[in-house]
């Protein structure tokens, strides 16, 4: 029986090639999109799950708030780890680690700057249990000069030689002996490390303040017999016992008074597996993804899937007239309705199976353009994905059910008595089909609006005056690898005519985070310490980035006293409640008096997503060397200037690589997420429109065919071509208009929410909405146009001839 079903189905597909092509192509395209998005979502959800006991592993986060400040940190204070181990017996293992910058490692001729070098407690591999290829994870960090390295690093430095016991020299100062080689981490982790060395005697790791100096990423594993809630309650108790006395002392008032003002201080357990998508704190180890992208893409996948299913349903039911006869015959030779339902289901299954196979190929071909994985620098072959098969199976079943049910029941319901007599099936307008078409238009319109709005916001952010000049600035990274040699480089650079200014700095605009420091207005109580973002630089920073001063002055190398002073931005002046702070003093957290030399006008040192935070710019003095060396160039001949700069660098670098970037390129990366989203939305929207158009095309072919006789009669009665075209397009136009009534409020709501994340955003006006409706109208008219015109021009004699 099943063979008979498949046979009919296959011959049906083969005989009606055009119809099959439209149906399968649309479905395959839709499935390909869903497939890619689902693989992407699964990948995003799989983060850090490769660790055994990942579900019992937590990070300790710190949330604090006082006066107008809030701090939410992914790091905690140094002694907290030991405290937790001592006070909470349900904690199986706990470890801390910290990043101190990228050292330059050497082994013989091989010399690289290593970004993924962390210092940690010896218990590190107890919490992060990665498989060791050489060495013993429990003892790898026992010696103070030990370092455990990843397999790819072992290969990089030692090739095929045994890595264990070899020496890596860091920054020409410190030797590390390789004590273990662990397997490379998969890309799906929020924390990539290649080198782990023990803290040894580092002073900061032995600090004793529970509430301040939250510099250490602290991770732990709980016993299975304690829940996160219970653990959180225990942490709350620890806060009261250990952090409270310190905070009372720091702010100079009692805990009761402090909390009455709304201030709080919390230690919170953050599940390891939730970090990648849900954690957006200060001092994250790497920039995390965002659960909102999962939501956005789920919505897109859902929408496109709906489009594909609707296409299928509409095309199948529209073709019902041609299948009706077969239904009648089969019933007359003894088929029950159930058997027909089964037959049409098998047919759907076959079509969907074909579509799924094509979808896999399409997904493979399209994935480079959709850029879903590119953010991870991960080449993806869809076929190699482990989740692919179950996913395909699921898609196959789900879509067969969704797309097949209605047509199967509709087709099998035909009464043989009616269809076999050759009565024309009543060409009643199908309400359901109308509804589905409206739904399709709605999805398309929403997606077009989304694309337009995201694009608009992106341009708004890119075009906005940021308060500094981002052009013509070259930044050399890791300049501190040269140590004091940077000073000579600076001088030689300045001697070149095309170099206008050079500045060392700790951070540059667009860095995801800066350090921070607490200051207060001398007149204010201790509880009103304000958190200011902290940037270190030399006296030329303002010149290189063309910052403008609101009052006072920038640093001056001729005044040695400037080293103790700071320059703040206008936001900081507002936060501190000072109308003209230049020349006045602030009190730092240590109680020192810090002179404010000047106030710079607010500039967007972070993404326009965020409001401009208060900032304090600190002075290093002129011989300072920071990780960044920013060079403002004044020449049309960039390549030549670059070559000159490179020569100077190489003279002083002892083989250290010239790692540079143009500032504007780098700053554009601040909006990488939005920029990618904009591109992806565009791609998916185009695909969605293509799918919807395929459906529309198929539908218009059938509808025009169904109404041929009516058109003939109308023409005989004297209707003009234009009138007939209107008659045929009118229904589609009505559908588009109805769809826009549905789509616009939904899109407005969604876009309002999306824009809500941006401190600086466009106003949502009617423009994109109107444009989206127009685009949909235009595209759908173009799609059905050919059919309509053909029908309207046809000779009525042909259609009215008695059959």
């Amino acid at each position, binding site marked *: 029986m099943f063979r008979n079903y498949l046979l009919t189905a296959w011959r049906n597909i083969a005989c009606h090639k055009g119809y099959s092509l439209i149906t399968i192509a649309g479905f395959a395209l839709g499935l390909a999109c869903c497939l890619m998005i689902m693989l992407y979502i699964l990948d995003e959800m799989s983060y850090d799950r490769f660790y055994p006991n990942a579900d019992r592993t937590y990070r300790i986060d710190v949330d604090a708030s006082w006066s107008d400040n809030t701090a939410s940190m992914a790091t905690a204070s140094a002694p907290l780890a030991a405290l937790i181990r001592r006070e909470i017996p349900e904690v199986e293992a706990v470890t801390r680690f910290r990043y101190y910058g990228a050292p330059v490692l050497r082994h013989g001729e091989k010399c690289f700057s290593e970004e993924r070098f962390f210092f940690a407690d010896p218990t590190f591999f107890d919490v992060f249990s990665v498989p060791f290829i050489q060495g013993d994870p429990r003892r790898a960090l026992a010696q103070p000069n030990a370092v455990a390295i990843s397999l790819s690093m072992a290969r990089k430095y030692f090739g095929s030689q045994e890595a264990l016991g070899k020496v890596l020299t860091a920054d020409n100062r410190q030797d590390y002996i390789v004590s273990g080689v662990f397997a490379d981490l998969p890309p799906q982790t929020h924390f990539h490390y290649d080198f782990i060395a023990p803290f040894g005697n580092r002073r900061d790791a032995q600090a004793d303040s529970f509430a301040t100096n939250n510099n250490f990423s602290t991770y732990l594993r709980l016993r299975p017999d304690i829940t996160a809630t219970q653990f959180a309650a225990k942490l709350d108790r620890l806060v009261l016992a250990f952090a409270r006395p310190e905070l009372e002392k720091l702010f100079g008032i009692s805990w009761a008074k402090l909390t009455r003002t709304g201030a709080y201080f919390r230690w919170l357990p953050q599940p390891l597996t939730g970090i990648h998508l849900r954690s957006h704190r200060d001092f994250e180890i790497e920039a995390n993804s965002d659960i909102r992208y999962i939501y956005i893409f789920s919505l897109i996948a859902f929408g496109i899937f709906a489009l594909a299913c609707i296409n299928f349903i509409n095309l199948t039911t529209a073709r019902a007239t041609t299948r009706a006869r077969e239904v009648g015959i089969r019933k007359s030779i*003894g088929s029950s309705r159930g058997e027909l339902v089964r037959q049409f289901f098998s047919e759907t299954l076959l079509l969907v199976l074909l579509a799924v196979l094509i979808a896999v190929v399409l997904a493979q071909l399209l994935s480079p353009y959709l850029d879903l994985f590119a953010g991870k620098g991960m080449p993806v072959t869809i076929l190699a994905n482990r989740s692919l098969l179950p996913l395909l199976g699921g898609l196959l079943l789900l879509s067969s059910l969704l797309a097949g049910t209605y047509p199967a029941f509709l087709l099998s319901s035909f009464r043989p008595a009616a269809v076999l007599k050759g009565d024309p099936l009543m060409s009643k307008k199908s309400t359901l089909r109308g509804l589905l078409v409206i739904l399709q238009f709605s999805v398309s319109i929403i997606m077009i609006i989304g694309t337009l709005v995201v694009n608009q916001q992106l341009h708004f952010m890119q075009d906005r005056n940021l308060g500094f000049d981002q052009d013509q600035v070259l930044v050399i990274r890791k300049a501190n690898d040269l140590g004091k040699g940077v000073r000579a480089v600076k001088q030689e650079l300045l001697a070149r005519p095309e170099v206008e200014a050079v500045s060392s700095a700790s951070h540059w605009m667009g860095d995801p985070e800066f350090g921070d420091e607490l200051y207060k207005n001398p007149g204010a109580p201790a509880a009103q310490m304000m958190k200011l973002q902290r940037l270190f630089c030399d006296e030329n920073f303002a010149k290189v980035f063309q910052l403008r001063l609101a009052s006072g002055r920038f640093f001056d190398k001729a005044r040695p006293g400037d080293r103790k002073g700071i320059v703040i931005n206008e936001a900081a002046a507002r936060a501190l409640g000072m109308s003209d702070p230049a020349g006045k003093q602030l009190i730092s957290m240590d109680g020192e008096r810090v002179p404010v030399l000047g106030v710079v006008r607010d500039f967007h040192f972070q993404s326009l997503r965020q409001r401009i935070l208060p900032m304090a710019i600190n002075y290093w003095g002129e011989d300072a060397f920071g990780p960044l060396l920013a060079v403002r160039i004044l020449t049309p001949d960039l390549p030549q200037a670059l070559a000159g700069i490179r020569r100077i660098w190489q003279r002083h670098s002892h083989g250290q690589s010239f790692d540079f970037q143009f500032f504007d390129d780098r700053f554009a990366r601040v909006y990488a997420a939005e920029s990618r989203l904009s591109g992806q939305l565009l791609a998916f929207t185009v695909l969605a429109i293509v799918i919807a158009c395929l459906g529309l095309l198929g539908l218009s072919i059938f509808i025009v065919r169904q109404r041929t006789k009516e058109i003939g009669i109308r023409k005989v009665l004297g209707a003009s071509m234009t009138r007939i075209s209107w008659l045929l397009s009118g229904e589609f136009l009505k559908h588009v208009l109805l769809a826009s009534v549905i789509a616009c409020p939904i899109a407005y709501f969604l876009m309002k929410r999306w824009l809500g994340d941006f401190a600086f955003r466009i106003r949502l006006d009617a423009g994109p909405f109107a444009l989206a409706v127009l685009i949909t109208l235009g595209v759908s008219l173009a799609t059905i146009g050919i059919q309509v015109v053909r029908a309207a021009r046809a000779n009525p004699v042909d259609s009215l001839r008695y059959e």
Partner: protein
Amino acid sequence: MIRLMGITKYYANAFIKTFVLRNIDLSVKEGEFLTIMGPSGAGKSTLLYILGMLDEASEGEYFFCGQAVHGLSEKKRTQLHQQNIGFVFQSYHLIDELTVCENLETPLLYKKVKPDERKSLVADALDRFRIVAKKDLFPSQLSGGQQQLVAVARALIIQPKLILADEPTGNLNSQQGEEIMELFRKLNAEGTTIIQVTHSEKNAAYSDRVIHLLDGWMNNKEEAAIPVKNPEAGKRKKNHSEGT
């Protein structure tokens, strides 16, 4: 074998009931060859479809071999139908996407006949109707007569007690038509009950009994009157439709 009592069929619109059949009483004995005649729109086909359980009467009772069809569920009715009734149509109604062989096999599939039995039944049918050479052809590759031959073979393959034929020769030329009618006569002689709908007096002559329908009424008293009034009407119409 068949007993209809007060069968009435109408289509109800919002305000109007359109009657197709009115109060039909009819008995057909096993082994009988019955012809239903009447002008277009008289309700002949509808009656045939009701007899074939492909349509339901609006009112009235239908007993098939003593079973009350009007009281059966759709499932039971389908079973009764697939065990006992074979259909032959004017326009053959073969499944275009299936070959001759597969067309013959389909009713057996619905009847859930076992594969080897199915094969032998199909082979028998191909033999009997001398269409073995055509078994892998599709309906569109056959002439009308050949298609109707396949259609009859398909109707017979389940060894039905009753064959319902709706103008079986309507689309055939006279020689092909005669062959089909001869076939029916032979089947009838072998004991199969046959009910046919036709416009043709010539075809009606093959049957034991003729009933006439007019505007949904069955009127056996006028049995002789109608063909006399317009003896060639059916034939001419038939020829016309052959031409198209």
